[in-house]
C-alpha cells in the first residue's frame, strides 16, 4: 500500500556539505554509472550524442550565487531524493508502485507496478523523480539500496556511489534517526537544515550551510584599471586618421 509506515526503524539518508562541495560532478557521474546497471536500471539516455540530449539522472548539481550583506559566494548544490518522512510522492501513487520502506525509510519505485502517470513527480517539490520516456515508468534515487547492503562489496564500499566518489568528503551517509550516529552529530554540530521545511515533507537528507566567512583569506582581486590616456603626437594622429 502507498500509505506511509507509522515509523521506520532507521532513517537512512545523506548529509551534503555545501561548504566543501566543489561542484566537480563526480557524484553525478558515479551515480549514473552505478545506477544504470543497478536496481532501477537502465538510466536511459535519449539522443546522447545529438542536439537534444535528454535522459534520466538521480543526482544533479546546480550552482548558485548567494549574496548577503557580508558578500557573495558561489555555492555548488547537489540535488537528489531526500527520502522524506512524509513523502507525498508515495501517497499520491495510485498503483502501489511507490513505497517507503519501514525498515530503513528508503523511498523506492517498483517499476513493474508503475503506470507512468507522473503524478508522483508533480507531488515532489524537489524534482527528485525523473520519468523514463523510453521505458514509460518513473525513476528515482534508491540511496544505492543495492550497494549499502551488498555483501559482495568490501565494508568500506557499502555506501551510496555518490558518497564513495566525492573527492572532498562533502557527502555523508548514515542513520539520521539515531541521534548518536556520526552523521546526526555532524548535522547538530554544523546546524544542518532541511530544504523547503514550510511544505512539511520532513526530508531525511540534510544540508550543511557554508561556514561563515572568516575574513582572513588573502585578497586576490586585482587593483582597478586606470583610464587610458589619449595618445598624442604622430602615432596618435595616425591612429585617429585610421579610426575615422
Amino acid at each position: 500500500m502507498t500509505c506511509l509506515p507509522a515509523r521506520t526503524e532507521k532513517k537512512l539518508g545523506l548529509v551534503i556539505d555545501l561548504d566543501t562541495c566543489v561542484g566537480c560532478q563526480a557524484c553525478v557521474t558515479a551515480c549514473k554509472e552505478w545506477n544504470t546497471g543497478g536496481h532501477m536500471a537502465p538510466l536511459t539516455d535519449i539522443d546522447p550524442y545529438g542536439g537534444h540530449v535528454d535522459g534520466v539522472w538521480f543526482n544533479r548539481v546546480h550552482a548558485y550565487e548567494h549574496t548577503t550583506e557580508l558578500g557573495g559566494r558561489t555555492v555548488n548544490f547537489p540535488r537528489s531524493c531526500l527520502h522524506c518522512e512524509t513523502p507525498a510522492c508515495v501517497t499520491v501513487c495510485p498503483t502501489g508502485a511507490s513505497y517507503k520502506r519501514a525498515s530503513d525509510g528508503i523511498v523506492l519505485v517498483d517499476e513493474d507496478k508503475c503506470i507512468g502517470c507522473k503524478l508522483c513527480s508533480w507531488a515532489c517539490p524537489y524534482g527528485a523523480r525523473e520519468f523514463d520516456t523510453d521505458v514509460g515508468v518513473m525513476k528515482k534515487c534508491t540511496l544505492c539500496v543495492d550497494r549499502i547492503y551488498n555483501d559482495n562489496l568490501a565494508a568500506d564500499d557499502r555506501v551510496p556511489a555518490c558518497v564513495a566518489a566525492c573527492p572532498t568528503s562533502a557527502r555523508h551517509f548514515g542513520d539520521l534517526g539515531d541521534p548518536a550516529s556520526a552523521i546526526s552529530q555532524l548535522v547538530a554540530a554544523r546546524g544542518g537544515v532541511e530544504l523547503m521545511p514550510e511544505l512539511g515533507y520532513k526530508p531525511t537528507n540534510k544540508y550543511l550551510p557554508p561556514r561563515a566567512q572568516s575574513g582572513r583569506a588573502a585578497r586576490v582581486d586585482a587593483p582597478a584599471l586606470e583610464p587610458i590616456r589619449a595618445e598624442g603626437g604622430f602615432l596618435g594622429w595616425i591612429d585617429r586618421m585610421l579610426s575615422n
Partner: protein
Amino acid sequence: MHPAFSVVFFTTATGAGYGLLALLGVLGGLGFIPADFWLGLVGVALALGLIVAGLLSSTGHLGRTERAWRAFSQWRSSWLSREGVASVATFIPAGLFGIGWVFFGKGGGWVAVAGLLAAAGAVVTVCTTGMIYASLKPIAQWHSRYTLPAYFIFAGMTGDVLLNALLQGFAMGSAAVLTGAILATFAGWTWKIATWRYNDQLAIPTTGNTATGLAGGTVRSIEWPHTEENYLLKEMGFRIARKHSAKLRRITQVLAFIAPIVLLILVFMAPWPLTAVASVLAAISQFAGMLVERWLFFAEAKHTVTLYYGRE
C-alpha cells in the same frame, strides 16, 4: 505545468459528462424531466460518452497504459486511485438508471434510486478529480481553497448548459433548467475571476532561499546541471508569456461565460427552433472556452522545482 492535451480534455469532458449525468439522474429519476426515449437515449449517451471519452483520453497520459487497472488499488491514500474507483463505480447506477429511464420509460422507484446514486457518484468523482490538484503542495496555484469548488461549479455549469441544449433541442425546454444554466454560468465566471485575482496576488513562502537552505540575501542560479531541457523542465517548467495569458483569459471569458450567457438569455425571447440553435451554440462555445480555461489552469501553475532553475 505542461498542459498535456490528454489531461486538459479529460478533466473538461468528464466534468461536463458528470454534471449532465448528475442532473439527468436527479431530475429524470424524480420525474421533473418526463421519460422520453429519444431525449433519454441522446442525453444518457452524451453524458456517458463524454465520461468515457475523457477517461480514455486520460490513459493517453500514461507511460504504461496496459497496467492502468493497477490504479484502482490504492484508494486508501491516493486521490487519483479514488477517482478511478469512483468513476468506474458510478457506471453501475448510471447504467441501471439509463436502462430504466430510457428503455422502460419510467421514473420513480428503483429508477429514482439508481438516478440519485448515479448523481452521488458523479459528485464524488468530480470531487476526487479536484482533490488530485488541490492536494499538491508544490503547486501553490492548485493547492488553494479555490480549486475544489472550481471543479464542482464548472461540472454543474457545463452539465446544466448541456442539459438545457438537450431539452431545447427536443422542444422540451424548461425555464428552470435555462435559468439554472444562466445562474451557474454567472457563478462559474465569478469564481474564475476570483481565482485569477487570488493567484495573481499569491505570496508563495517557498523561495530560492528555502529551496537551497541558504538563509538570507539572494540566491541566483548561475549554472544549470545540464545544457538541454530535461524531464523536469519539460513537465514542470512550462511557462507562458504574461501577454498571452491575458489574451487567453479574455478568450476564456468570452467563450465560456459571456457568449453562453447572451445566447441563453436570447432563448427566453426566441421561438423554437431558434431556441434550440442558440442553446446548442451556447453549449459548444462553453465547452471550447472551458478547454482554454483548463489549458490555462496548467500553463499558469508554477511548480517549486522551477526555483532550482532560477525561476522565481
